[in-house]
């Protein structure tokens, strides 16, 4: 599937009775790269999960390539082209690496697994191992590879670099950029390291307490020290 645009209108969502996201609106053109920033617990993960349909939605629309998917179940959203790499990785612990990948294949043939193994040679070595046996970083690779194998048109990445060795981080970020600029995917990235996030994205969105408090280009943010300080900069430590 080629990249598609994503537009979110007045989305409110949360868990059970707790509202976390309020009135979130933004849009990402097809093939664009968006970074989502914000301090701990501000709702970044909640936002991505809501797009995927894994949280409770109280209102709002999610337009994928112009069509509202907010009423769909998450598997239908996935089949329409949304793909999520969750922060908690959510490896299928009792499945082998290869089976994990197959679960993400959707309808593609098994030969497509090669793509994943090329991206992460480490996974090829461990492909008969069960999910729970993998090291933290290997789980992260598996989670990312599994989602990418499904060829999503909009890829949602929740801290995909966590626990990865620097050398792999670099390669991976480069791969993400390639996927986006090749017109294969639109990418939304949540990333704690501001440098990496800004390097990666065209535009940036900052969340605070479940609301968007700033939207703009990476350059704008980079040039505004005060902004960074205010929203994501080093917090005061008691």
């Amino acid at each position, binding site marked *: 599937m080629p990249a598609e645009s994503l537009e979110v209108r007045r989305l409110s969502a949360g868990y059970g009775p707790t509202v976390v996201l309020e009135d979130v609106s933004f849009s990402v053109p097809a093939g664009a790269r968006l970074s989502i920033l914000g301090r701990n617990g501000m709702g970044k993960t909640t936002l991505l999960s809501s797009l*995927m*349909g*894994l949280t409770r939605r109280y209102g709002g629309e999610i337009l994928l390539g112009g069509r509202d998917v907010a009423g769909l*179940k*998450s*598997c239908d*959203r*996935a*089949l329409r082209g949304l*793909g*999520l790499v*969750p922060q908690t990785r*959510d490896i*299928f*612990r*009792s*499945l082998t690496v290869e*089976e*994990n990948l*197959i*679960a*993400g*294949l*959707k309808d593609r043939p098994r030969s497509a697994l090669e793509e994943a193994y090329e991206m992460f040679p480490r996974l090829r070595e461990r492909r008969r191992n*069960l*999910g*729970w046996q993998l090291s933290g970083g290997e789980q992260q690779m598996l989670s990312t590879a*599994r*989602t990418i194998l*499904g060829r999503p048109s909009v890829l949602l990445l929740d801290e995909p670099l966590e626990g990865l060795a620097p050398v792999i981080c670099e390669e991976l970020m480069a791969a993400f950029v390639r996927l986006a600029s090749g017109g294969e995917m639109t990418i939304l990235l949540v990333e704690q390291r501001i440098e990496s996030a800004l390097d990666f994205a065209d535009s940036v969105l900052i969340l605070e307490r479940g609301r968007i408090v700033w939207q703009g280009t990476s350059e704008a943010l980079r040039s505004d020290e005060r902004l960074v300080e205010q929203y994501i900069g080093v917090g005061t430590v008691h």
Partner: protein
Amino acid sequence: MQTVFSIAIDAFAYGMALFIICIGLSLTMGLMRVVNLAHGAFAMIAGYIASYAQRELGAGYAAALLLAILGTVAVSIPLERFLYRRIYGSPQLTQVLMTIGITFCVIGITNFFFGPTLKTIALPASLSTPVDLGFRAVAGHRLFVMACGLVVAAGLWFLIERTAFGIRLRATVDNAGMADALGVRTQAVYAVSFAIAMGLAALGGVVGAEFLPIEPYYALRYMVTFLVVVSVGGAGSIPGALLACLVLGAIDTTGRYLMPDFGNFFFYAAVIAIVCVFPRGFLGRAQ
């Protein structure tokens, strides 16, 4: 020597009968992670359907078996849709509560409609005549049960371990939310698996009726046996279930031959010993 052979044959037949009744439960418990205590209730429903079909509709054994499987699956579909779907992924004890409730209901209802008497499923001549094995005669249906058990074991193992459906099923159980997010139609996967499990329960109920006769209390009477066998095998493992059934069948049979007075001690002491050595059951899926 002849006695040893004879006991071995009995043990094997009993083990396979257990297997064919329990394997559906191993599927629900190990793979779908639903402690379906109502498994026996579905086997019992199948038994009633088969017996009814024979008596009232004059169906033959094969037709009755087929009707029983279809009928049981048909009964299970709405139950899956409206009840079981609510407890996938719930804590095990909640599942216990719900499935015991279902068992009670099924028992009450069958008692009401079919009365409390034993129900029999007449075997065709080909299965009821003893087959001479040289050193002794074995009832034909025992051989039939063995064959059925082996076929089911092989088929199911292939389905679960080798097909994409099997992988999707296991992924769904492992983490339904994530499987959903990867585009797996988890509800359909669950529904189909449940139907398969219930079909197996039905098959086991009818084919195993010569060992565990059909009556309204069936569902509760054998619940413990089913639970023990499945867990000793390691829930969700087909070879494990097969192994457990054969081992426990053998222990039970020899125990009852050698020391009938202490048959139960034998059986449960063996269970304790096995579980202490294999805390996950013989071939339990590692966590």
